């Protein structure tokens, strides 16, 4: 089969056995790769209602048909597991060089199960697969681990996906880092990896996939690379400073989109000090990109003593600047960048990390936590030193860090005394840096999607409020009319569905949304690689299929429509700023959620995919996984 290696690697760490599956072409066409594979294997193979740290939970690393080709934005991997934060479905994508190297090692996915009796890493090349001792790597940072494996194997081109001390300590929002700075962040897969005593997967190889139409791929690469320059507003900004530029941060703060002080204020006086512009002006050493990508959207940041921020691991994005900066009320740039660097070295999702610390700060200021609870740390908003100190404590599960390492949902339940009202999460996953009171349609996606609180899984309401080429694209996928950001009508839900299934297709291909692909171009790419007569219809159906599989997984695990909501705080105003008189209307939001269910072919009350929908999506088998009570 073209485009793919045709092989899926399985490693059972308990028995220390390796196997290779060779799925047929129908499987590849039905699930494509990335999020499609992850969703299939999670539902098919992870036993019902096990704990996320049970050895029978699985880690599924999957790439796509375009991975490994010299196309921009095509070196990405999707990682899925049962989440230790939610007890449900989880997936996240990351870029870098690991995904391309995995394809060159000759595999389309790696599925890990079991638990090793001592720390190990998995070495995967086009010549051999080995489970190797990682005892001396345990406790090491992401970068130390990566460099040690490169030294031990002698493979200069080795690429890793690994965990740091946070994953080893089962911090529930621990990330898995591709090489040193690309995070599979959301959902806590790093903690699952730690529970398996798996320090890293290291990959290398020189295998190249057979491609049906190499000339077309070459043309597509040229077109996509040229399109960066045809789209100077978007891509030039990304190319120059990455995400988190002044427009996103300062304008976001102006309209209340950028959360501050644990989503209670959303008007942060120090915002200008922590933008990407400020970071690059003060400490920027350049920009870098993922394999074969000309967008090069990743900041290279270096700060000397006393900070010692390493340019190989640092480079805060918008979400990080917001979470470790504004949410914590911290406007000291060096502290924010150091916290980001530590999060990458220890392997933690910067979003959940920042929001968990912001939660701790609000608990402290409201008396739920005392100096005795924090070990004397003055955990007030704006205390940059305290923020940094707690980053370390969380990674090592020391003192108050041990509670915050549980994520806000569990931490609030443990603390009690009203802490639940301060926990900004959906089903256990902390909210991203796009306030649903400004982007309510995206808020519905946060609430409903299988991987909760994912800001990449829907359309940002502010970006589709008028006729534009972006909206025109969505119209072709089922959206009808552009609507004001604040709208939550059925038309808005149609637009969100269009965006959601498009993004899930993108995550299966597995391609980056910072490259200005349109649906037809990406479908053309899949055709050129595979030789199939692949269509846009199939692509969007795949998106629907993935959404339904994730939904069934969560229902099976006891996560129902009752949890498809947002923190109570989102239904009220902020203390000051643009949202001081605002707040979502709960009834309107609930109606929008119901409409979204219906538009997806799910029951409008329970959100359960109907049997007809599962049949239509060629996943009738998934109905067997639904609880009988539904």
């Amino acid at each position, binding site marked *: 089969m073209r485009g793919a290696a045709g092989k899926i690697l399985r490693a059972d760490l308990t028995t220390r056995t390796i196997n290779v599956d060779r799925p047929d072409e129908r499987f590849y066409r039905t699930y494509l790769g990335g999020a499609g594979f992850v969703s299939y294997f999670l539902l098919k193979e992870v036993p019902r209602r096990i704990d996320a740290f049970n050895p029978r939970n699985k880690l599924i690393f999957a790439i796509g048909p375009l991975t490994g080709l010299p196309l921009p934005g095509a070196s990405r991997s999707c990682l899925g597991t049962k989440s230790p934060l939610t007890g449900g479905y989880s997936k996240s994508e990351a870029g870098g060089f690991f995904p391309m190297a995995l394809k060159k090692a000759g595999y389309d996915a790696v599925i890990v199960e079991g638990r090793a009796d001592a720390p190990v890493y998995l070495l995967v090349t086009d010549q051999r697969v080995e489970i190797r001792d990682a005892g001396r790597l345990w406790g090491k940072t992401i970068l130390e681990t990566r460099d040690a494996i490169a030294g031990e194997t002698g493979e200069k081109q080795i690429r890793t996906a690994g965990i740091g001390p946070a994953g080893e300590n089962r911090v529930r929002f621990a990330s898995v880092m591709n090489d040193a700075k690309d995070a599979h962040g959301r959902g806590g897969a790093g903690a699952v990896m730690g529970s398996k005593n798996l320090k890293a997967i290291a990959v290398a190889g020189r295998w190249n996939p057979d491609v049906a139409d190499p000339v077309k791929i070459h043309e597509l690469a040229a077109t996509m690379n040229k399109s960066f320059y045809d*789209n*100077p*507003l*978007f*891509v*030039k*900004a*990304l190319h120059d400073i*990455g*995400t*988190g*530029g*002044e*427009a*996103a941060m*300062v*304008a*976001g703060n*102006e*309209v*209340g*989109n950028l959360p501050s002080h644990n989503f209670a204020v959303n008007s942060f006086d120090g915002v200008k000090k922590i933008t990407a512009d400020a970071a690059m002006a003060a400490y920027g050493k350049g920009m870098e990109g993922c394999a074969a990508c000309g967008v090069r*959207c990743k900041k290279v940041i270096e700060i000397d003593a006393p900070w010692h921020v390493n340019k190989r691991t640092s480079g805060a*994005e*918008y*979400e990080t600047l*917001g979470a470790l900066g504004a949410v914590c009320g911290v406007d000291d740039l060096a502290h924010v960048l150091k916290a980001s660097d530590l999060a990458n070295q220890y392997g933690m999702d910067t979003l959940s990390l920042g929001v968990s610390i912001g939660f701790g700060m609000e608990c402290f200021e409201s008396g739920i936590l005392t100096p005795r609870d924090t070990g004397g740390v003055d955990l007030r908003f704006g205390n940059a030193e305290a923020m940094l100190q707690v980053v370390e404590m969380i990674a090592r599960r020391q003192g108050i860090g041990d509670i915050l390492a549980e994520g806000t949902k569990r931490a609030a339940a443990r603390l009690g005394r009203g802490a639940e009202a301060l926990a900004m999460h959906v089903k256990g996953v902390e909210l991203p*840096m*796009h306030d649903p009171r*400004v*982007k309510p349609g995206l808020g519905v996606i946060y609430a409903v999607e299988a991987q909760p609180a994912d*800001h*990449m899984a829907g359309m*940002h309401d*502010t*970006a589709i*409020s*008028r006729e*534009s*080429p*972006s909206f025109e*694209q969505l119209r072709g996928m089922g959206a009808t009319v552009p609507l*004001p*950001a*604040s709208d939550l009508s059925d038309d808005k839900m149609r637009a969100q569905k269009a965006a959601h299934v498009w993004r899930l297709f993108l995550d299966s291909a597995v391609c980056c*949304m*910072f*490259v*200005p*692909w349109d649906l037809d171009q990406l479908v053309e790419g899949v055709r050129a690689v595979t030789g199939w007569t692949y269509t846009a219809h199939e692509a969007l159906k795949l998106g629907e299929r993935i959404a339904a599989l994730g939904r069934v997984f969560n229902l099976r695990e006891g996560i129902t429509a009752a949890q498809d909501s947002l923190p109570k705080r989102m239904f009220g105003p902020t203390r000051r*700023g*643009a949202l001081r008189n605002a707040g979502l209307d709960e009834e309107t939001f609930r109606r929008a959620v119901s409409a979204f269910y219906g538009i997806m072919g799910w029951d409008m009350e329970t959100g359960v995919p109907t049997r007809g929908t599962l049949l239509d999506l060629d996943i009738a088998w998934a109905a067997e996984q639904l609880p009988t009570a539904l």
Partner: protein
Amino acid sequence: MRVAVRVMGSFRNAPRAGERSIVVKVIHGSRVADVRRAVGIGDDESWNTSIAGQLVEAEHMLQDGDALFVFAALADGASSLPE
């Protein structure tokens, strides 16, 4: 009437925008879209505008003394979307 316009990010490169807030004279009955065109931001760009922190649409009627904030449409942390 006069309105103040502050432009953020890449839009500062628009022909009549810049680093600082500028004052634009417009006739009564002007709308947000008129001011945006007046500073040279094209119709095909993805943009948002706010007045006093509130997002307003292109057809929003302006008042004398309004202070407009014009910026690339807020998206996934990058302000604006690939098109």
